[in-house]
């Protein structure tokens, strides 16, 4: 069925727009209709808008730095106090008057806050908080749709218009309005503390996760292990949540979960060491920028050990995020809900925000370290030269915009993360859950020896195979070809599924009794 029966009247009578009113209000109505019908437009539009705001902000600052500077002797990077700006108001006004025009002094008022690092930090924090709120909003809805379509049903359809895209928002409002009760004999302060201990590290990990080339809140030389440290602190929150609920099933779930998270941090960390070896730095921007040369420079195609390490890291990160098939902590059929059984309302939603933000962070790490960071499969250098040479595009905002769409940029990063998150959702609703002893077996007796072999192999490869040798190039192209085949097979499977979406499960149905 493609139509959902609605018992209410479908649409009110549309009012007519003619003439000048159509010109004025028409575009707005079109945009509104677009947002109403396509939640992806909202999500990606929000992302694009955010990127545009931040980019505009950076361009304005560059403008301030280069155009409004009085003379080159003023050191714009000198030490300044916490709340101070880089140029004083008088300098900005005179600079605007001399360099742009006498009537443009008012521009100094608009640009003065941009010179303060404090203001820039606040803007960046605001942007991060918006991203952190949008990611679970979209991902939870998407998970419900993906699980529904895998199970031959439709998922949320009513709330909001097109395929129930505001379902998560409605759920959030409902959860906030729920009664907040704490178990009688539980540890009250710890019960209230635990969701924050789980949620805050997930947010803090975004502090060091770059969305584009130097699009990061704090560019530290140890960005990678900062994120790993944040993911390690989450374990404490899970344990406390289970303990303070005064519920033995919660304690079991928390213990299993903490054990699993801590165990899988080892192969995860070892798998992250391989790209660090190839790149030579823990700085995520450096690691990302070394993959700017197109599909074949992506780290997962550099040598077979990196290829395997990408897969191993992905599996270990699934376990670290407590996603299926490792989701014993929230195993809905076994322990009621594991460590968050006694949580309801807003506290429960904190755990889920934490989980989905952590999913994005680990997917982001995989993208940066293995799958080309924020670069497209096209080579950035080639595209830049091509745009300047063949298409004769002048250097400036137009070319930056095109390069941002085609070659590199936060959009590519978010799209790649979305693909990896989609695979996580897909795996969750396809594979059965495995037992705790099987989980630990997989970690200690399968992944850990595999990671040691990969680590050793990568080290030996980097020592023996010279840069630019024939063996390296052959391996590169073979692995790149394999990767391209895998991605194309994803696309082929998706297309086939879409073409056959209205057929019943039919020939896949199994007879319930053998021999009947």
């Amino acid at each position: 069925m493609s139509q959902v029966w609605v018992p209410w009247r479908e649409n009110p009578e549309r009012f007519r727009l003619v003439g000048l009113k159509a010109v004025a209000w028409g575009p707005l109505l079109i945009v509104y209709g677009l947002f109403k019908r396509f939640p992806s437009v909202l999500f990606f539009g929000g992302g694009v808008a955010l990127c545009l705001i931040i980019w505009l902000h950076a361009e304005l600052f560059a403008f301030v730095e280069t155009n409004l500077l009085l003379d080159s002797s003023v050191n714009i990077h000198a030490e300044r106090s916490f709340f101070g700006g880089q140029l004083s108001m008088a300098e900005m006004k005179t600079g605007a008057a001399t360099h742009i025009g006498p009537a443009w002094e008012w521009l100094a008022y608009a640009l003065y806050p941009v010179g303060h690092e404090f203001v820039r930090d606040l803007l960046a924090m605001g942007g991060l908080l918006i991203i952190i709120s949008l990611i679970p909003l979209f991902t939870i809805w998407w998970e419900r749709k993906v699980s529904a379509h895998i199970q031959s049903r439709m998922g949320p359809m009513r709330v909001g218009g097109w395929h129930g895209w505001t379902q998560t928002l409605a759920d959030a409002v409902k959860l906030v309005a729920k009664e907040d009760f704490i178990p009688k004999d539980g540890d009250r302060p710890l019960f209230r503390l635990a969701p924050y201990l789980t949620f805050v590290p997930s947010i803090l990990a975004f502090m060091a996760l770059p969305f584009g080339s130097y699009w990061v809140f704090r560019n530290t030389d140890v960005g990678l292990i900062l994120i790993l440290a944040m993911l390690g602190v989450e374990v404490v929150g899970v344990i406390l949540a289970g303990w303070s609920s005064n519920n033995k099933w919660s304690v079991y779930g928390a213990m299993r979960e903490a054990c699993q998270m801590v165990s899988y941090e080892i192969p995860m960390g070892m798998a992250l060491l391989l790209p660090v070896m190839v790149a030579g730095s823990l700085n995520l921007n450096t690691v990302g920028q070394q993959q700017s040369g197109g599909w074949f420079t992506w780290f997962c195609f550099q040598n077979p050990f990196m290829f395997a390490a990408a897969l191993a890291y992905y599996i270990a990160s699934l376990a670290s995020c407590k996603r299926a098939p490792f989701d014993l902590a929230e195993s809905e059929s076994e322990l009621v809900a594991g460590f968050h059984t006694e949580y309801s309302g807003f506290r429960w939603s904190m755990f889920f925000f934490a989980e989905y933000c952590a999913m994005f962070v680990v997917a982001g790490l995989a993208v940066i370290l293995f799958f080309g960071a924020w670069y497209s499969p096209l080579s950035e250098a080639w595209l830049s030269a091509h745009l300047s040479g063949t298409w004769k595009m002048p250097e400036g905002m137009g070319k930056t915009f095109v390069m941002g769409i085609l070659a590199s940029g936060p959009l590519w990063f978010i799209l790649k993360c979305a693909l990896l998150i989609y695979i996580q959702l897909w795996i969750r609703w396809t594979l059965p859950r495995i037992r705790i002893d099987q989980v630990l077996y997989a970690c200690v007796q399968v992944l850990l020896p595999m990671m040691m072999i990969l680590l050793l192999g990568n080290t030996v490869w980097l020592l023996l195979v010279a840069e630019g040798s024939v063996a390296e190039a052959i391996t590169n192209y073979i692995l790149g070809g394999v990767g391209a085949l895998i991605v194309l097979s994803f696309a082929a499977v998706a297309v086939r599924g879409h073409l056959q979406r209205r057929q019943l499960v039919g020939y896949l149905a199994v007879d319930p009794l053998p021999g009947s």
Partner: protein
Amino acid sequence: MSRLLVSRLVVLVLLAWLPAAALAQGSPAQEPVTRALTITAEQNWQEDVFFYIFAAATVASALGVVLSGSVVRMAVCLFATFGAVAMLFFLLQAYFLGTAQLIVYVGGILVLIVFGIMLTSSSPWLKFEVKRGELIASGLVCAGLCAGLCFVFLRTSWNGTPQTEHFEVSALGENLLQGYLVPFEVASVLLLVVMIGAAFLARQDQD
């Protein structure tokens, strides 16, 4: 192999490690590698404010560990202590050390402590009954320790302006593998022995 034998081997290795580490720490084989991009930071009031906040947090949570009524609350206060110390490291621009503190202490040692507490404690609210003799003995030891620490603090000449040199993580790696290689290897052998010993001692009895 009996457990007694293994435990004795572990103790032997532990004892052998001490003189080896002591000998090795004395002199690095070559000049330590320091690559510095000097950021001369004057002491401004913002750093002082943050220092006092984090130091107060450390002391308060350490007091919380000692004075807490419940074992799990002690563990949470310990978590706060470790976190505040990591913040102090970040304030000193020792970013690698701060993150290592978070990974090792919070993500590893604290989780282990909490496991141990939760799986072995008979009740969440513990009541210590301290005998008079224990009180006197521990009081004397603490007073002696406090006096010794105060003596050392008052006699040290604290440097007025701290020199902050931004140091690259690769310098740390090179030092560990070139200059300070022997202590590094000895420490890793020690960890290996301890791990094997612990796994062996904690295994189930096989009939």
